[in-house]
């Protein structure tokens, strides 16, 4: 219960002071370029990766990309870039 309250407080705080949410809440930012490219920031790690789908772990859960011909173009501590044809994004 305490955790949930804390989180709510944080959300309120960010909304009042208009602070970027990714810094305070550690939310992932996904930038899509059409359906070919996706840049994911603030991720924690890769859970699974095949040619058809990628599951990426973030602070608030797993994001799943579905499509075909996936390829991770680069991968650093903060961000990663995925190319391929994306069909679905699931949370």
């Amino acid at each position, binding site marked *: 219960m305490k955790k949930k309250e804390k989180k709510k407080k944080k959300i309120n705080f960010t909304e009042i002071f208009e602070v970027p949410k990714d810094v305070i809440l550690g939310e992932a930012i996904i930038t899509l370029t059409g359906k070919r490219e996706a840049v994911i920031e603030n991720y924690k*790690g890769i859970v*699974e*990766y095949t040619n058809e789908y990628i599951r990426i772990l973030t602070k608030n859960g797993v994001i799943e990309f579905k499509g075909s011909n*996936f390829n991770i173009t*680069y*991968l650093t501590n903060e961000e*990663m870039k995925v190319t391929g044809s994306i069909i679905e994004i699931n949370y």
Partner: protein
Amino acid sequence: MILSLWKYMQGYVVIRVRGYSPERFINLCANKNIYIWNVRKIADGYIFCISGKAFFMLSPIAKKTKCRVKILKKIGMPFKFLKVKRRKYFLYGLLISIAAVIMLSFFVWRIEIEGNMKYTTEEITAYLTKENVTIGSFKPKIQCSKLDDQLLSHFNQTMWVSSELIGTKLIIHIREGVESEVIIDDKKPCDIVATNAGTIVSIITRKGTPLVKQGDVVEKDTVLVSGTLEIKELTQLKAVEFTHSDADILLKTKYPYSDTISYQYIERNYIKDQQKTDKALQFFNHRINLLKPKINSMNYDIVEKQKQIEPIKNFYLPIYYMTTTFMIYEEVEKTYTVEETEEILKSRLNLHMEKLEENNIQILSNDVIFKEDKEAFIATGSIYVIEKNGQDKFFDELTRRQGYNEYFTEED
């Protein structure tokens, strides 16, 4: 583009990771700030690229995740260098050849002499050799301005000399002038003597006592104009003076001329088909023949062409490329006809007379007779000419004055 070039310069490896959970391996890499790219999935693992330096940081991760790492490909400049490193002697050879080129550029490998007409190139090079300027001498030791002065003073017919060093070539520019005239001391007393026998055509005396007159027949070495001036009062000798004689004397004289040609002569018939060439390389004085043609005939003329190797303009090396041509000939005995010989002799005579006329000698006539002989055709006779004659002959004033002493003693 720039990024990929940077990656190439730094060098990277393509590796394959297999194991229980290769995803964890990638996550750990990302956590440790190891940059990886082009991650592709294969059946039981991943293939990705990683920089060469980062590759050495992978072993603890591989141990942790129990994955196996294998290098599939090495791409980039550092790996190319490694290959060269293995070829040590190739590298040494490269260094030695560069050093050799630098060393060779410190010496003179070619001497060119330009503008010499009277002095032969051999003459000048012989003098340069005496002055220690030869092919192969050390360049910084040659002082061009000093060399100019030396050449100018040694060869007195040169007007100016300028030498320069370009690359490994020493060029000497020479401009020749008229020979500085021999200054005759016109105060020293002298006689004028005939150099040829003949008849005096005219004599104009400016200084001295003329001893001959027009129409006189003189022998060789006859005194034509005496430098002794006898000062007389009536017939009495009063005093004696000595002067430098000066006169224009035209002498009619003859030059003997004879010429023969034998009817039989040997002509060389060059056979083009049997002509053979030999090519050779020459380093300093060592010669390496490349082709060694077999020459059957004993009769041949050798024509040799030498070309110095010049890899860069004006950078000559002491390597020569020689082409030798052996021109094989047959000796054919031939005979002239009488008419041919006469014609040849006549043309030779004309040539001779032209040469005489070039020397300011006026030709009057010739009585050259052409005669047929058994084996040869003979031309004999003499050429009659009018030439300027007379040569200064200096004498000692004191001894000549002694000769006159008796006149004066008598008088006293």
